[in-house]
């Protein structure tokens, strides 16, 4: 197709375009989504089609993950009925996989907002098509995580006691407690992430409304709130999204810091560390970016979003993952060397446990998955845009980061200042089942979402395409961005 067929504003402005130049333009188009505008309706259909498509794979995924969701419900009910005694939780390890899952899934929920908000604030242009997919990982990851303190409670039905409700007995939650800070931070982060997703969805829901019939039309019409894309609507929306962009980044940092304080405030060897805050934040981003990568690769493949999700996006994400791997290694080393040098009796035992005890295979697998695999692979720009390689690396990162949290929670907790009360935690069926089922729940919710809502923020892509052009410098064509201020 010739350049001038597209409504792209700037690329067509090379009237003298000779053949060599046309080849270069074609190359740039192929590389960059922002330079490759297509007719608006074609772009709409590329986003809308996958929402209607069903396949055997889809039904099988929904059945499998739906079954896991049911298993979750049944196991949790049984645990409420018979009590936490049916799990392997036992003195001294009273925080088992439930808390590992809490930390892990909050971590998974960290990258979405970071990619969306931080890259928006810093004006990284490749973020445009991936922000929705990332934000949804955040929302559902956080929901899965937020369930765990409840699952972990001995009397789950008392969870509303965390809410500062006026009541007859004048009892209030204790704001001295890190668990209370955690509750405040997670509720802030979750509710604001949901609104953030909704804000950026609003114009896309309107798009879906204008292209649908039946129940979908009524549903989208209600959710679109009467959106017409008028000037003041865009301006108000963008102002609100600006507030969220700059508001949600510090909240994101605070959430995983406060989660780390759940541990660091306790005088438990292996936990009582001042670096835990930033160390947890980096770990969360690391596993979160990996999770978003997995989601993006699957979305591109299964929803056929090859037009929107290109090499440049995966390359950008992979570089990000590599930097986070280095940052994680740096923080882990910090967290390791100080107790190692101090050589306190219990710390020494914990380090021996990691290096030589039952945790040895886990510990080395963690170091391998979190440092050797990402750094060994992602330095190479060819591998950085090979989706199979990226998928495997991201899976390794998930395994490594899960193990890291496992070693921190039941690992460190099994050894304390009183050798007489040391003990090893053995996972039992209920908590293992709920852990596996939570992954099912996450996938289930995500898949359902992709059936109902557009997974690409089209208006952001269009805005990017309207802003980008090519400039000829010498023999090269260089991508430029124009932005009125």
């Amino acid at each position: 197709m010739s350049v001038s067929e597209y409504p792209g504003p700037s690329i067509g402005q090379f009237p003298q375009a000779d053949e060599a130049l046309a080849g270069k333009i074609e190359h740039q188009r192929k590389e960059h989504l922002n330079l490759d505008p297509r007719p608006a309706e074609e772009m709409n259909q590329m986003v809308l089609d996958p929402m209607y498509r069903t396949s055997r794979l889809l039904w099988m995924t929904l059945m499998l993950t739906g079954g896991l969701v049911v298993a979750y419900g049944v196991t949790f009910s049984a645990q409420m009925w018979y009590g936490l005694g049916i799990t392997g939780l036992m003195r001294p390890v009273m925080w088992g996989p439930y808390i590992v899952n809490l930390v892990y899934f909050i971590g998974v929920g960290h990258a979405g907002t970071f990619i969306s908000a931080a890259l928006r604030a810093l004006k990284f242009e490749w973020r445009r098509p991936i922000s929705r997919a990332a934000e949804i990982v955040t929302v559902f990851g956080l929901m899965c995580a937020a369930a765990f303190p409840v699952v972990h409670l001995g009397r789950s039905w008392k969870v509303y006691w965390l809410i500062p409700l006026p009541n007859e007995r004048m009892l209030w939650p204790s704001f001295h407690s890190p668990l209370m800070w955690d509750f405040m931070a997670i509720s802030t982060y979750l509710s604001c992430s949901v609104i953030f997703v909704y804000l950026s969805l609003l114009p896309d829901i309107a798009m879906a409304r204008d292209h649908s019939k039946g129940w979908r039309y009524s549903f989208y019409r209600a959710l679109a709130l009467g959106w017409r894309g008028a000037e003041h609507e865009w301006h108000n929306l963008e102002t609100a999204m600006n507030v969220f962009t700059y508001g949600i980044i510090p909240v994101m940092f605070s959430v995983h810091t406060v989660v780390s304080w759940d541990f660091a405030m306790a005088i438990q060897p292996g936990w009582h560390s001042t670096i835990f805050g930033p160390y947890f934040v980096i770990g969360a981003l690391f596993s979160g970016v990996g999770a978003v990568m997995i989601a993006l690769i699957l979305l591109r493949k299964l929803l056929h979003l090859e037009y929107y999700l290109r090499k440049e996006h995966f390359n950008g994400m992979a570089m990000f993952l590599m930097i986070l791997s280095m940052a994680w290694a740096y923080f882990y080393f910090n967290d390791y060397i100080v107790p190692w040098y101090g050589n306190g009796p219990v710390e020494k035992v914990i380090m021996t446990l990691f290096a030589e005890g039952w945790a040895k295979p886990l510990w080395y697998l963690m170091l391998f998955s979190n440092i050797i695999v990402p750094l060994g692979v992602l330095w190479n720009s060819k591998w950085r845009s090979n989706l199979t390689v990226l998928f495997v690396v991201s899976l390794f990162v998930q395994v490594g980061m899960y193990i890291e949290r496992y070693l921190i929670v039941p690992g460190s907790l099994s050894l304390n200042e009183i050798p007489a009360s040391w003990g090893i935690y053995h996972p039992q069926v209920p908590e293992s089942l709920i852990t596996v089922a939570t992954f099912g729940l996450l996938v289930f919710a995500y898949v359902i979402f992709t059936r109902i809502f557009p997974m690409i923020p089209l208006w952001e892509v269009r805005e990017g395409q309207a802003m980008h052009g090519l400039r000829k410098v010498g023999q090269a064509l260089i991508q430029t961005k124009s932005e009125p201020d």
Partner: protein
Amino acid sequence: MADIQLLGLFHDVEQVTSAISQVRKAGLKDSQFTVLSNHPINHEILGRAKPATYVTRMALIGAILGALTAFALVAGTGQLYPLSQGNQPIIPIPPLLIVTFEVTMLGTMWMAFFGMLLSNKFPVFKKQVYSPRITGDSIGLLVEMDEKLADEIKKIFNDNQAHEIQQQGASQAADPGAKRFWWSVVAVLVAAGGVTGLFVYDIIHIPFPSQMVDQVSIGEQQGPRLAAPVAAIPVQGRVLVNGLPQTNPVAATSDSLQRGKIFFSINCEMCHGSAGAGDGKLVKSLDNKPADLSSSKIQSLADDDIFLVINQGFGTMPSMAENLDSKDYWDVINYVRTLKK
């Protein structure tokens, strides 16, 4: 003459800007028209003033409300129910900062969202002039003006290659559906608060076991005693555990006596002496002398009484429960019987 609305659909932003300048020339004010588009178009591209918004102001109000709420929660509830923890003050500053930060951000962002809804007058229930092509391939210019100008504006639209023109009566200022919506939101919130109040103030009482005092339990010195769970305590004896052997289940065979002798020599002999006469090596450092196991006083005790003494200790004598397995007690008892003078 009544006002009407005209919506022209264009393909290109250039056509729209050219139409805008002609509409201005026709004597229309900037507040009378707006551009509808499928992506945000900067106001400078359209040659328009930046639209006013009070989203930021709402966000600021939200921040202040959030900070005050957080302070009220931490400081206020601390005063209402003073709970000293780890020698921290009742109103601790660092936790106050954390809670204040979170609730402030919560207020800021929620109110920014709320401000977005209010300043866009969302949700809209009244009929609006609109074309689904706006989220597709078209950019719309929506003009609201006196009916007599309609022909002139239509001509401007056509001159700029508008491919579709819609006409509709003036937009109604009032949107009764929106009013109903916000009142129902208020009603739902009030109802939710009311229902919560009914429960937390125990006006509706659910007989949940919410106080430990109300649980099924047995008070001090209060019968009937519950039987211990099976295999709850790995200690045997007459009075301690129901249903366990009260008499010596181990016959005094030579095996048993030999085992008993070995256990005796390890655990008992240092105080009670090799013949059980109460003259072991440690006696000189004890104030209370060990019992003479060969005496008729000891030998007249029942087996299970001796079992209890081994298990529980007696006076200065410590419990042997950590040194001996309870089933080995019987061997020791059989051996002690042989010490009778």
